[in-house]
């Protein structure tokens, strides 16, 4: 953990889609206990949450959400999107967010991975999006920029988002997991790297961290599948949000890293059962990817909120007529910016 980062600058946001968080919290205790936690209960979840003692946390349930945003708006936080409420109400600089079916992983040497420390390291060391370093993150100990890396690009840019990975149950879509039901990810890749500028990727919401002050508003609930369900195989909300984040980061000159830390993702759900529901998402990605690849934000968009509003505009114009889901997503993005401005704390300008 970087000595310059204080524990009080960090919030850990957990979206609770299952009521019993006892084993989840116990397993994470050695790593989470020093931090403030925000637990947001899926408004659709009927049972009471079970949370062990000894944590510094705030829990938000449906009545709390209704109170802050109103009963009609609170529906946007259903399912996995409940975590966005936590991002909205947090006042901290850094947020780390992990799904409630993920546990601490062990690295190749059998040592427990401190996912929080790794995410914070990723966020507090520069990213290098303009030129690829073949030895991966040059700011890691034991590594550096390689021969041929221009010196003018070696100071890097601020890292806004850190995307972690998953051992055991990888974040595959339903068709892929259904085809290979026994496949589990056992490969621990000891690397962090910056995703190059203008390269898009599927940003999974399962294990991420970000600088809320710099990029907060761009992590947003907006694309909701008609059949969205309570398994990641039945969602695309994070993938859509991730596209917005990457486009905004590329435009604002911020970096996105991917790689470590790993979390251990427990087996849950049935890929074949989810196949039916996710088909819609798989189809939509065929439109979504070329669309985001073509988005160019105007020079006047200088803040993250500007970027989100601009993207919403273009979504409405170019995708709105193709499928009502996009028109709804565009409106949700516009509403989110307004919500962020009224409820969320203001963002500083990028690069601060």
């Amino acid at each position, binding site marked *: 953990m970087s000595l310059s980062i204080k524990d009080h600058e960090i919030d850990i946001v957990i979206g609770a889609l299952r009521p019993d968080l006892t084993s989840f919290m116990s397993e994470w205790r050695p790593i989470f206990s020093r931090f403030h936690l925000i637990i947001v209960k899926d408004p659709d979840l009927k049972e009471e949450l079970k949370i062990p003692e000894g944590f510094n946390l705030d829990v938000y349930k449906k009545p709390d959400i209704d109170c802050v945003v109103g009963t009609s708006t609170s529906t946007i936080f259903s399912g996995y999107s409940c975590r966005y409420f936590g991002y909205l109400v947090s006042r901290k600089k850094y947020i780390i967010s992990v799904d409630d079916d993920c546990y601490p992983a062990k690295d190749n040497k059998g040592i427990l991975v401190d996912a929080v420390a790794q995410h914070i390291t990723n966020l507090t060391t520069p990213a290098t999006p303009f030129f*690829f*370093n*073949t030895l991966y993150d040059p700011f890691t100990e034991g590594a*550096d920029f390689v021969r041929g890396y221009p010196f003018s690009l070696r100071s890097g840019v601020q890292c806004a988002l850190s995307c972690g990975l998953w051992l055991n149950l990888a974040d595959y*879509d339903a068709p892929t997991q259904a085809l290979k039901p026994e496949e589990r*990810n056992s490969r621990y890749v000891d*690397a962090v790297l910056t995703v190059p500028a*203008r390269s898009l990727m599927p940003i999974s919401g399962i294990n991420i961290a970000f600088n809320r002050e710099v990029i907060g508003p761009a992590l947003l609930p907006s694309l909701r599948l008609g059949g969205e369900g309570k398994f990641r195989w039945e969602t695309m909300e994070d993938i859509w949000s991730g596209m917005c984040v990457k486009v905004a980061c590329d435009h604002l000159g911020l970096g996105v890293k991917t790689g470590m830390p790993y979390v251990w993702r427990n087996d849950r759900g049935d890929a074949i059962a989810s196949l039916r529901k996710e088909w819609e998402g798989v189809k939509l*990605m065929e439109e979504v*990817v070329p669309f985001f690849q073509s988005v160019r934000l105007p020079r006047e968009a200088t803040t993250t909120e500007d970027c989100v509003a601009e993207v919403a505009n273009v979504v409405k114009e170019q995708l709105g007529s193709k499928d009502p889901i996009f028109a709804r997503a565009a409106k949700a993005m516009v509403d989110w910016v307004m919500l962020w401005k009224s409820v969320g704390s203001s963002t500083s300008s990028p690069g601060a």
Partner: protein
Amino acid sequence: MAEPATATQAAAPAVALLKDELDIVIPTIRNLDFLEMWRPFFQPYHLIIVQDGDPSKTIKVPEGFDYELYNRNDINRILGPKSSCISFKDSACRCFGYMVSKKKYIFTIDDDCFVAKDPSGKAINALEQHIKNLLSPSTPFFFNTLYDPFREGADFVRGYPFSLREGVPTAASHGLWLNIPDYDAPTQLVKPLERNTRYVDAVLTIPKGTLFPMCGMNLAFNRELIGPAMYFGLMGDGQPIGRYDDMWAGWCTKVICDHLGLGVKTGLPYIFHSKASNPFVNLRKEYKGIYWQEEIIPFFQQAVLPKDCTTVPKCYIELAKQVKEKLSKVDPYFDKLADAMVTWIEAWDELNPIGPVPNGKAA
């Protein structure tokens, strides 16, 4: 602490993949003792040895290898006046080997690179991994967060469009190095003791539109797909710059691959790089390059090839034109280099004619 594998630990594969379709190109100035360690992995393959430096010296090749060897006299004889494009007293001369090869694939390796060990202690068959990389598709249009989806135990992640899952042909496979990392001279001077001990178990496609520093120490490519772009420039004797040969080839190659929809992979395999070259000597060679790359990189990042450049030689000639137009003002060296790039293509075409020879007989 990284250590090379010992010869006894290296186990030859049951089947030598592509044994009649791949040449191993090795530039050397000293000796080829290092081949002894690679024997289990390299012996089935044909070697092309390009001898740099004094042609009167005899390079001893270990017994049992099938090889052809070219020294400066051979290069001059074969290319005539066009031999001016091949560097002298620099490992850049290796690209002559690419030109004379008749095979589909090339693997090139430096003579101070040995067999590395993976974290389990097993000797790494670098050639086999390169072949796997080249024979499976690349995915340059969308980044897969679990790295190469074609590797065993991996796949495309949720959100990856199905229409992009076929990938594109892989033109080049860029391997890495344990022990002595490929740092430039200033970094070597600041960190003389740094050793790369991190084994990153990944292969990944470098996204379209992104440039990278291509190191020629441990590199493989599909000669049929991208060979003419692998010109290693004018370096060494009589030239103002050194240690930028592979960099130059890498930037040209990546721009052309991006234009033609071909992929470049980086990551595994690792080799064990044993020799740290003298950083003061390196500094003298790289000095100009360190300044020039600040102009060169934006040039390549902004280079656009016209739609009618549909083959690698056409792309390369066009790039040479743009180098002359835009980089000559940086230094007259680039003017010479642009000319050499054209000479290279002419020489390549001469040695690699397509279709029947002009007098009507089949090639």
